[in-house]
């Protein structure tokens, strides 16, 4: 009799569990990725797409999401807000979740549509200041600029006793002036004098006059807040004008991509760079990713935003599996909300390079790094935790 009761209890528990675990109804999870695959930033769009598709292949090889394969569908917005908005309007009709858009102008045109329709679209390449406008239907991949950047600049400046005045080169694009403002607050906190900033026009082609303007103020340190190619050219001009203390130049994270190294060549040796991505980190997933990336990109190591959409897809996977999302079109609204709630406060998320937590859509413990460029490669100087 006792055995029979035991068996019945076990059956009841099993039945309850199977009722609690809703059944996945889709044959394949489709995750659209609004990306700039053509146009001025197509090169960046390519490696973002590559990262997402690499994650999909890895997930599928390991059994998919809740037992079903996942497919990342690249939706080209061509850097065009008009196209981005129409594509997003098409997606919100029946997509469970999306990734992108990329970059800021398309985010601003298309994300209000995702918000209005209650669909998560993870914008993993933009700054907190853009992402937070669309909470809870996206998350920020980065902490607020005013929290994350000052500790980095403080750590950089503290390495050198002889820095007493610094000049910033600032290109007026999206969040970059705000990032320069965060650098300024760090310099102020250290009692370092900030010299008159040098504006870098978006369409600038010659950089000699800008370097002269900076050098005339006799700075001890330089911070570059402009795109990679311009940063490299400014460094070359500074060297031509006799700048020798290369590690007293700090390049901000958005300029840390292939063009910095391709254009800068040996002239950027010794320059310091801050970023989220530490190529020297080693773990089996990251090492595999690096090798595959290099194979697909003529031997190049992953660029600074390469892992973002890889991680974004894994975050979607975790949200679906942990919240029992089924993909049932009848439950679309409820399941979209489940995903939004989950990713906004995910804990111990296993990213490609490190684990991190989210609190209300903001990462709380992502490390950042300062590197020095040696022979065209970044060598870690120090890790900076918030």
């Amino acid at each position, binding site marked *: 009799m006792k055995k029979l009761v035991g068996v019945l209890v076990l059956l009841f528990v099993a039945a309850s569990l199977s009722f609690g675990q809703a059944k996945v109804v889709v044959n394949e999870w489709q995750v659209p990725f609004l990306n700039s695959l053509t146009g001025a930033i197509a090169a960046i769009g390519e490696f973002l797409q590559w990262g997402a598709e690499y994650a999909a292949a890895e997930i599928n090889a390991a059994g998919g999401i809740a037992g079903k394969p996942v497919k990342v569908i690249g939706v080209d917005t061509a850097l065009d807000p*008009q196209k981005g908005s129409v594509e997003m*309007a098409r997606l919100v009709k029946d997509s469970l979740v999306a990734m992108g858009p990329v970059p*800021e102008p398309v985010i601003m045109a298309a994300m209000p549509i995702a918000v209005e329709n209650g669909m998560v679209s993870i914008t993993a390449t933009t700054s907190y200041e853009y992402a937070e406008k669309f909470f809870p239907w996206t998350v920020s991949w980065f902490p607020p600029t005013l929290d994350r950047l000052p500790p980095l600049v403080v750590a950089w400046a503290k390495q050198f006793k002889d820095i007493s005045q610094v000049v910033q080169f600032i290109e007026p*694009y999206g969040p970059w002036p705000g990032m320069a403002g965060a650098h300024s607050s760090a310099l102020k906190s250290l009692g370092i004098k900030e010299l008159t900033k040098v504006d870098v026009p978006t369409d600038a082609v010659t950089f000699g006059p800008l370097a002269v303007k900076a050098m005339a103020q006799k700075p001890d340190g330089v911070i570059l807040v402009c795109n990679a190619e311009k940063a490299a050219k400014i460094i070359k001009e500074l060297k031509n004008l006799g700048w020798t203390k290369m590690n007293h130049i700090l390049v901000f994270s958005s300029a840390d991509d292939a063009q910095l190294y391709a254009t800068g060549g040996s002239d950027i040796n010794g320059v310091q760079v801050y970023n989220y991505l530490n190529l020297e980190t080693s773990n089996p997933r990251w090492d595999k990713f690096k090798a595959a990336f290099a194979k697909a990109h003529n031997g190049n190591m992953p660029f600074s935003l390469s892992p973002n959409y890889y991680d974004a897809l894994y975050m979607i996977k975790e949200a679906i599996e942990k919240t029992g999302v089924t993909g049932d079109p009848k439950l679309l609204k409820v399941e979209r909300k489940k995903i939004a709630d989950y990713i906004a406060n995910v804990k111990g998320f296993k990213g490609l390079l490190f684990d991190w937590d989210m609190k209300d859509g903001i990462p709380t413990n992502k490390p950042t790094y300062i590197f020095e460029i040696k022979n065209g490669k970044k060598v870690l100087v120090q890790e900076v935790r918030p």
Partner: protein
Amino acid sequence: MPLSLYYYLSITAVNILMSWALYVPYRVAHLHFITVANMTISGYLSGYLVMNLHVPFGWALLIGFAVGGIIGYIVSLFIGDAPTFAVVMVGFTFIYITRTVIENMDVIGGTMGMFGLPNIGGSPAAHRWFIIGILYALVLVVGFLIFRFDHSRLGRAASAIFVDRDLATSLGVDIKKVGMLLQIFSCTLAGGVGVLYGFIYKSFHLDFFTFALVGIFMTVIFVGGYATQWGTVVAAPILYGFPLFFPPEVQSWRIVIYGAILILVLVLKPEGFITRKFVHSIGTALSRKRENS
């Protein structure tokens, strides 16, 4: 109304109106790219008025038209009778100046842009109907005005200026006055459309108003046909809508396809697909049909 249809229709209307804003001064051979700067200025101003000063949208829209017109008037005092190249240069310069000024104005978002414009009419659905209603009412009104202009003495005077300025002057046409009038009309229209453009997206970003817009409007005019207003009406929905139905593999080649079409049209049909002759023959065919019935 399905959301994607709303965006398709509203952006098509913007493209038609803005292509007309270029078409009208082009009747006297002025490529008036200042219209893109007008869109930007009026758009951002309306955003500021609505968001910060809580001015009702209707007033903000009217102010947007008015500011466009005032800028157009002031500029036309200097370039109302200028040659094409000078007008083009002034337009490009204005776009640069506008961008730089806005980049440095934190009160309207600076380089970050302006977020969270409110729904007109309270709800998102009402907002969409308002925007579509205003845009297509504007298409009808402006289309009617341009039609009347094309068939008026003023329109014929503009044609004479386009063909030969000296000849037009000898016929007693006041070149500057006609040029000014068309530039002011064009800038007024662009100002209002700029307001509506931002309210479609409910945000403003400087990269909404780039030279890419000039490219789109120019393609619409020159592929559709620059000699009549109907070319724009036909080309805008097709050129903008057609690529949306491309399979993803072909999507990436969109810009190449645009470019190829533009080159082919310029080589094979320099006047564009819808020519005056074509419009005339359709008109004749229709009137014959009416007479027969």
